[in-house]
């Protein structure tokens, strides 16, 4: 048996824990740089805000409904997520953290206990300890747990926890095909065209036919809906294969100085992440382009790829490679909106010995990087940085409406009236 615990409107809920006056008000949270809507409270969903809507297109709606607009506060969301996940782990040791606000839980270890009662206790504990409301679905497979979770969310009167009953037909009929885990938009359209509208309709289909008409992944989904386990708990996260660091500029930039500083900043952060996960990269791609929305101004998009020999995680090597790749493709006369660095073919562990690098250099780089990381961890990100990343700070995020980092910064603690 599996359970899926999913935080309700997680980012908005985090904001509400420390600002209770936001309860029952429509809240939307914006992406880095305050570009698009990435999270909505239930009230904001009901008004009709969609994920990914650029906020500048929603101004009227925001004004009309007194919508609370917040910049993203990932320091807060990350800390609250950690608390939720740790509380969940107290109820079962077998937990797969599926995303910042979702976790699969294997229930088979909880012998002789009523799963639904236990999950209700877990839900109450998470709510009391962290202030975050969660919904929980219980089923024989991960796909069924996900489906029950969807049902629990759509049916608030059952109190946030739903288990797939012995006779599941009613619940399967209540969930439309597009809401099933693993069925994307394209497929749900295709399914509806052949008369499959709900999970119940889907379960009636012959797996062999599904495999032929769609593919093996769709067949597995159907088998999981029938209660055959195809997907198990993944507790050791798969090693990442690529790493992207990019962000749009707060306002358009036009000079090589600014773009190169942005690229160097992204290269720096990407290298930090690599070292943090003890990985090295073999290929680097660098890119920059003009706005995707503004069609009136001249548009330009450029990218270049360079091989890193030997594979590395050293900040200055990656900055150098990124700038060397970007300079030949630089073009004046455009208003650039975004730049980024993409590292590919990542692998574990020690950089290999190479003809191009002496052992002394390798040790030197390693020592420099450990000093750099130690200083930046203890004294704040960016305390020590390479001059190439610049001092003009074009890369500072635009976050005009970010709430305080209530749980991770001493000078931003919640104030209580005494």
């Amino acid at each position, binding site marked *: 048996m599996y359970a899926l615990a999913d935080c309700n409107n997680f980012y908005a809920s985090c904001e509400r824990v420390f600002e*209770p006056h936001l*309860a029952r008000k429509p809240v939307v949270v914006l992406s880095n740089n305050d570009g698009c809507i990435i999270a909505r409270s239930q009230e904001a969903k009901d008004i009709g805000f969609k994920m990914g809507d650029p906020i500048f297109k929603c101004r009227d709606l925001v004004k009309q409904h007194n919508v609370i607009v917040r910049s993203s506060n990932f320091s807060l969301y990350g800390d609250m997520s950690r608390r939720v996940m740790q509380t969940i782990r107290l109820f079962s040791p077998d937990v797969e953290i599926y995303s910042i606000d979702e976790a699969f839980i294997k229930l088979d270890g909880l012998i002789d206990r009523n799963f639904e009662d236990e999950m209700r206790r877990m839900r109450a504990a998470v709510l009391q300890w962290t202030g975050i409301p969660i919904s929980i679905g219980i089923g024989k497979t991960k796909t069924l747990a996900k489906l029950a979770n969807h049902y629990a969310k759509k049916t608030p009167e059952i109190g946030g926890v739903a288990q797939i009953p012995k006779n599941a037909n009613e619940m399967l009929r209540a969930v439309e095909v597009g809401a099933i885990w693993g069925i994307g938009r394209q497929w749900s359209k295709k399914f509806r065209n052949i008369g499959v509208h709900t999970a119940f309709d889907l379960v009636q289909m012959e797996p062999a036919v599904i495999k032929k008409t769609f593919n093996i992944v769709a067949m597995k989904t159907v088998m999981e809906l029938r209660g055959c386990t195809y997907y198990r708990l993944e507790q050791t996260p798969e090693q990442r294969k690529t790493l992207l660091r990019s962000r749009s500029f707060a306002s358009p930039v036009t000079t090589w100085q600014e773009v190169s500083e942005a690229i160097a900043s992204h290269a720096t952060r990407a290298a930090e992440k690599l070292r943090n996960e003890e990985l090295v990269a073999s290929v680097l791609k660098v890119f920059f382009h003009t706005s995707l929305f503004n069609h009136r101004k001249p548009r330009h998009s450029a990218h270049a790829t360079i091989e890193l020999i030997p594979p590395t995680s050293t900040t200055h090597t990656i900055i150098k490679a990124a700038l060397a790749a970007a300079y030949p493709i630089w073009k004046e006369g455009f208003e650039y909106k975004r730049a980024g660095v993409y590292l590919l073919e990542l692998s574990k562990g020690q950089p290999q010995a190479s003809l191009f690098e002496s052992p002394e250099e390798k040790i030197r780089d390693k020592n420099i990087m450990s000093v750099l990381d130690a200083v930046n961890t203890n004294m704040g990100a960016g305390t020590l940085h390479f001059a190439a990343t610049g001092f003009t700070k074009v890369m500072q995020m635009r976050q005009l409406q970010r709430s305080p980092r209530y*749980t991770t910064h001493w000078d931003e*603690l*919640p*104030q*209580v009236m*005494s």
Partner: protein
Amino acid sequence: MVEELRLPLIGSRVEAGFPSPADDFIERSLDLNEQLVANPIATFFVRASGHSMDGAGIHDGDLLVVDRSLTPMSGNIVIAVVDGGLTVKRLSKHGMKASLMPEPSNADEGTYKPIEITIETDATIWGVVTWSMHRLTCTH
């Protein structure tokens, strides 16, 4: 010209001289978290602002440790949500009635009114205050 002298980096410290007589008694240093934070998952820090709790030893600017996993009992100092804001008061329960009691210094007696927890006031308990930390030196 002087050649640069390179020394190997040695991991462990070379011992020299007399060993400290305390070496055999080395334990670990004390971590204040062990005293102040019983349940880290549910513990939050907040900052007090105002004078309604001076009499309870909570002063303006004090750092409060709040444990959300404790069940609020009558007599506990709690963080409550009142009118959408967070406030710190002493919880007092009498039968079916619950109130949030201010506890000012004698000089401020009568300045702050108790808040009754009823359906109308829409007050809820956010967490139980377990410690108050009051700075005794100037901040600058």
